[in-house]
């Protein structure tokens, strides 16, 4: 792969990671957070492929992405069962009601 092509590919991969990171921290929906994490990890996978990392690295990252997706979806299901919603702003509000913040020391 030529150097400009590699650079362009890496820029795309970093853009994917950055957009995934921004999405994960800004969206309120738990499932969208899981999707955004998958986008970020997909960007990392693209970067590893462009950098011609060994197959072992690619397989490891796929396994990690799958594990994050499984745990994320399981958490979203449990949140839906416990709160009736998967929007984190509503969940935070419910937590505040459960345990109102006490006076500071």
């Amino acid at each position, binding site marked *: 792969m030529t150097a400009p092509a590699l650079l362009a590919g890496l820029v795309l991969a970093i853009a994917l990671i950055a957009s995934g990171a921004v999405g994960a921290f800004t969206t309120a929906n738990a499932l969208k957070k899981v999707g955004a*994490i998958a986008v970020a*990890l997909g960007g990392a996978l693209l970067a*590893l492929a462009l950098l011609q990392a060994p197959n072992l*690295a690619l397989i490891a990252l796929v396994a990690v992405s799958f594990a994050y997706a499984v745990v994320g979806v399981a958490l979203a299901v449990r949140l839906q069962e416990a709160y009736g919603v998967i929007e984190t702003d509503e969940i935070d509000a419910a937590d505040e009601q459960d345990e109102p913040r006490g006076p500071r020391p």
Partner: protein
Amino acid sequence: MTGALAADPSALAAAAPVVGAALALLIPHARASWLFAFAVMAAAAVVAIDAAARGALVSAGGAAMFSTALVGLSAALCLFAGAGLVREFHAPAAPYAAALALCCAGGWMAALLSRDWIGFALAVEVAWLAGTGVAALGDARRGALNGALRMLTSGGVSAAFMFLGVGLIAHATGTLEIAALAHGAGADASIAGLVLVLLSLSVKTALAPLHSWAGGVMGRAGAAPAMLLVVVGTTGALAAMVRIGAAAASAPHLAGAVEAAIAALGATSVAICSVQAMGASDLRRLAIYAFASQAGCVLLSVSLGSPAGFAAALVQTFALTAAMLALLGAAAAMREASFDALDGLGRRHPLAGAAVTAGALSLMGAPLTIGFLGRWRLIEAAVGAGWWWVAGVALVSSLAAVFYGGRLIERVYFRRAAVVAERDRDLWRTLTAPVLAAAIAAIGLGVEPSILLHASTQAAASIFGTAP
């Protein structure tokens, strides 16, 4: 695997918890599964301590072996304490929590002992996901799930940066071996990769400003998960950062830039988290912010890039772990984390009060505590290297710790409880041993530090290939 164990017996320390996790799932009784997990972790800790004491062949280096022994020992104490806290879990979930706790500890130990970047990154992510699982399972209240989601979000994003960093390092060095960093190829890409890996670990160590998950998780998690996440999880991540610092220090063409990055991370964390610890709204949040502040001092020690600096970092990591176990164990004994629960604790519960006091004094760096020893070694190393500003930051960190640690002691001994909670003798029976062990270590090793100093000096010297 048998061949790997024969070549490097210390690998057993990382393998045993993972195998033990599978067996813990087969034990249906909640407390029995946690006690089994404790037994497995204690065996792994003994192997790690033995390997560290003998200076056995460890590919990752003496500093990593020192940290592995520390993580193993602290995880064993947490699991023993956790056996008394199983009521926090739904009964069917308790064996899963014990298995995940073992995976968390085993993951961090494997990361510290790993020879290659893929093993390192995989082990870190296994440990983090297992910690997320413990946080989610660990409290009958639903808030724990919200905290676990925060951990998952931060961990997932940081994993992307970790693997990007690993890819850059592998591209620069042409191999996945961590030791290949010293060979001098592809300096710029290696530095970029190492900084990305360090940033990813900063998230998992709860270093400011990348610790958005920490307050939410600690405020909502139960006592056992909070103890495990701080004493094992963040300590393991901090030790992994020290290990990366050691790998960079052995590569002269990388050392300067990586040490500058570590110093920046450390100083930022000291500044932000000291303020947050002073304004924390409960004991668990105070503990995580105090941890992050003091972890900043550990990183400043690493940034000195000298054997004295690494020895100081190892002593401080030990001191920090003991202080956190004493503080969070005592908080678990009170069954709530609010500051009000500390009022009059010295009269109601003298041993728990003494543990909180020992932990707080060690965090402050008061003389005759292990925290003082760590802080003294840091200042000595910083002045020796001519880095006066590092000595100044360490003093500022201690002054902040006097403020938040002093508040804890004031509540324990100089206030009366508004509501006297009923003492849970059954719970305290299992918490006594680990909490007092941590408190005695915080004071005892400050009074007679020769063993710890010898071990840390030897471990730090092995990074640079010099005799202690």
